[in-house]
């Protein structure tokens, strides 16, 4: 009989809940949650930015709270709940109200920062359905956008919040088309 070689396991194996579904994954233990999501689970919606916590584009929800997936080890997801931008869509592939207003109001240009903004705003609206502009700015202060500036992003969050409260708010014409000359 052939002798079996003993090979030391190189990978960590964890189970957690990803976007509402149970998930198991094996990866090198030094990988960050960002790398595990993108490289081992092929969820590339979460973006790879500064790697040092300055930009916020890699934000995901860990047990419902926004964290930077570039500064959390993949191992730390064990037994916990992770939500990425892929998990935001509603049944039948409909967009989340936040995704809808970000698109409608031009709150995304190059789009690289958008997943981080969306998830951070999602948690804000879950705990505070009617935030003030100041509260929105505070909650999103860890996310950098280098294209739109922040006004359109704040407006999109405010409009999505109104939609999520069931109000029939509509985007002001000048927000989309600018002031009439």
């Amino acid at each position, binding site marked *: 009989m052939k002798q079996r070689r003993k090979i030391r396991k190189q990978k*960590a194996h964890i189970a957690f809940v990803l976007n509402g579904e149970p998930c198991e994954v094996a990866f*090198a*233990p*030094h990988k*960050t949650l960002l790398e595990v999501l993108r490289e081992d689970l092929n969820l590339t919606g979460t973006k790879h930015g500064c*790697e*040092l*916590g*300055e930009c*916020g584009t890699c*934000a995901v929800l*860990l047990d419902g*709270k*926004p*964290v*930077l997936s570039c*500064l*959390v*080890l993949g*191992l*730390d997801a064990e037994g916990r709940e992770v939500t990425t931008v892929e998990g935001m869509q509603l049944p039948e592939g409909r967009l989340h109200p936040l995704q809808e207003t970000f698109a409608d109001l031009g709150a995304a240009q190059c789009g690289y920062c958008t997943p981080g903004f969306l998830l*951070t705003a999602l948690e804000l609206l879950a705990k505070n359905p009617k935030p003030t502009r100041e509260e929105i700015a*505070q*909650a999103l*202060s*860890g*996310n950098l956008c280098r294209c739109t500036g922040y006004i359109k992003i704040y407006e999109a969050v405010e409009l999505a919040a109104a939609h999520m409260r069931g109000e029939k708010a509509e985007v002001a014409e000048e927000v989309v088309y600018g002031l009439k000359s």
Partner: protein
Amino acid sequence: MRNFQHFNPASLAQATTTLSSKPDAWVIAGGIDLLGEMKNGIIQPGTLVNLKTLPNLDYIKFSESDGLRIGAMATLAKIEAHPDIRKHFTVLSQAAHSVATPQIRNVGTLGGNLCQRPRCWYYRNPAFHCLKKGGKECFSVSGENKYNAILGGGPVFIVHPSDCAPALISLGAEVTVAGPRGKRSMPLEKFFILPTENPLRENRLQAGEVVTEVHVPPFHDAGSSSSAHRSVYLKVKERGAWDFALASAAVSMETNAGMCRSVRVVLGGVAPIPWRCPQAEKTCMGKQIDEALAAEAGKASLAQAVPLGKNDYKVEMAANLIKRALLMCSASSASPR
């Protein structure tokens, strides 16, 4: 990042034993600062000893008789939002809130905030083998020293990056550390060491030791009607969010009938340790604080400052922060700040 072994200890004792027996083992709490250092290639741990899975290290307990006790693993988000801390220890909730960004505060811990390594760009850049990393030279002396120390510097001129440390020292906090030989406590002020004592380190933690708790004692006259306790943390940074302090001031003051009965003044971002300002405290003791006195206290605190050439601005900035914080703490209006 290089690969490493990841170890979830079953108990604090197992964590400290592992840390002291393996020279290349590092403790990981929230990991924000540690992973940054590993990514920059400044440290390459062989083993990470994880404290996150240990139970009962993230508590926040408050009582009028015992004061405030915070477990080292309590997150900064939990500290800034805690109602008792907001009410009785304003300086600490403000300091915790001023750290980094909401996402980082959801992960970063109090223990990690106190033990984080310096932000000096020569230290953070692996291309510079500086004195802080066991080299021969502190490159900030003749180099770009805009963010470096104006007080207590030499032979290295880092500034301590913690916001919570000055706040807690202004409140007279004690820190407890646990190691392979058991626990010990000391005033948080004595926890930090100047580079003259050891240029490679910022605190007194010995091999295998980790911070486990911070205790803020109760105010001795709690309940007396004519006395008031107020505290405030002011921080100047270049960016509105994320950034470390160019300079910060933590002031905690007890007043009785408008007179300053006791006060602690601590600066952040200007020295290799949180910098206590006894001159400011002496200036204010027993007096009613007005603008002139507060300005004098600020000026006296910075009299010994030695700027390096590109950080002179910090002298006036720190003096003004002390002045403003003293005035806010002594303001007669009862509105909380």
